[in-house]
């Protein structure tokens, strides 16, 4: 398991970002294997991906977190000639009760609805909840992952 992106969407992330798209972070309680996630879906829509092995976690205080375009940094041409994408603001969920664990965060477009908005990738984020707050600290240098 690794932080990864749908193969068909790798180049599209930077393009969508430059086109002004907004993105959302969706907590997952279960996810596909990397291979199935990357290449196993004919459509990248959120509805389609969540209809497979990925299960959205909506228990306790888990909700989707949105990031508007102006709060996402995209820098091209790092040493490996990859795109680095940084969500400028960390996401926090307050007082998440026990037995509402997550395994990953899904990164997707937001705005047109789950049937249209496309999933870009997923970021490993395994948390065993215990009633405390949960914070996703996004790497402000290297990005959450690179999308070549």
């Amino acid at each position, binding site marked *: 398991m690794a932080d990864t992106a749908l193969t068909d969407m790798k180049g599209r992330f930077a393009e969508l970002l430059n*086109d*002004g*798209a*907004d993105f959302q972070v969706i907590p997952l309680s279960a996810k596909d294997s990397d291979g199935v996630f990357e290449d196993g879906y004919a459509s990248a829509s959120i509805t389609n991906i969540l209809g497979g092995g990925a299960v959205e976690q909506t228990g306790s205080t888990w909700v989707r977190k*949105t*990031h*508007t*375009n*102006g*709060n996402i940094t995209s820098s091209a041409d790092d040493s490996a000639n990859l795109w680095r994408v940084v969500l*400028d*603001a*960390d996401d*926090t969920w*307050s*007082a998440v009760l026990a037995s509402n664990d997550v395994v990953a965060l899904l990164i997707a477009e*937001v*705005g*047109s609805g789950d049937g249209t908005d496309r999933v870009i990738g997923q970021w490993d984020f395994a948390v065993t909840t215990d009633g*405390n*707050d949960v914070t996703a600290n996004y790497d402000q240098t290297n990005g959450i992952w690179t999308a070549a």
Partner: protein
Amino acid sequence: MADLAALKAAVDVAQAAQDSLIEERASKRASMVKAEFLVYNYATDQQQKDTQAALGDATKAFQAELKVIRSDAVENAINVAVGTIHESNSPGGAN
């Protein structure tokens, strides 16, 4: 102690502002030609940042108060437990 309900209400207001902005942006992205939307996107950059920052600040304030309440609850539980032990070990106590 700050009013937890007021802090949560502030989070909800900030979240509603973020949701409204996302909805407005999606509508414009669907209706405008790309060049026009990019101008709009650039022009509203600071509004996007301010909205996200307001949500982050409200959330942090709410969570900080939650921590205080949790800390107080733990302290109270410890005091009750110590009190019970002290009482049970006192002359005339259960022990």
